[in-house]
């Protein structure tokens, strides 16, 4: 049961890989990378149960936290072609809306 789920998740990962390689748009690739990350997180959770050790869940947690940094970085570079612009504004001290 757990192993079957792991295999299904791996199959989904491979399908995502095919989409990642075929493109054709950059956005398709970004979508595939992001979705591939989600599937890897799930696989790591399931794998922790497969080997009976909880350590893999820590890595899944790390990916769940950090997976979208790369997605945002790619989109930002592709769209604005700059590292230093803000996507959003921080409120300065004393500033009211």
């Amino acid at each position, binding site marked *: 049961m757990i192993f079957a789920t792991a295999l299904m998740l791996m*199959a989904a990962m491979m399908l995502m890989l*095919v989409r990642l390689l075929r493109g054709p748009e950059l956005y398709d690739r970004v979508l595939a990378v*992001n979705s591939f990350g989600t599937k890897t997180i799930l696989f790591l959770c*399931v794998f922790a149960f497969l080997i009976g050790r909880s350590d893999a869940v820590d890595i899944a*947690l790390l990916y*769940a936290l950090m997976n979208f940094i790369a997605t945002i970085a790619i989109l930002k570079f592709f769209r604005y072609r700059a590292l230093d612009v803000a996507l959003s504004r921080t409120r300065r001290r004393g500033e009211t809306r």
Partner: protein
Amino acid sequence: MSELLHMLDILRPYVAGIALLSGGVIVLIGASGVLRLPDFYTRLHAAGVTDTLGTLLVLLGLILLSGFTLLSGKLALVGLFLLLTSPAATHAVANAAHKAGLKPRLGTVQSQPPLDASGDPS
């Protein structure tokens, strides 16, 4: 009351198994959708929607399997963070594609050029 709890405890692995397998199937369906659907926006739909449900089901199954431990807490956190970031990332991709002028493919399949010619940003 305790009998009911006992019943639930017996049922737990079965419910967990059903949740795990259905979660896996949903993720797989979503992945094949991403592979087969004709243009970016439909693929986005397939990935975004099924990922959320599939993730929740798989993690629910695992939480049921592990019982009330530190591990289930971590799994719940994984689910929470995925629920936060995954739609945000999907939103960012969709927003960026829309802003860049990527047009969805409209109309029937027959009236469209083949797959590789579609989705030129204008």
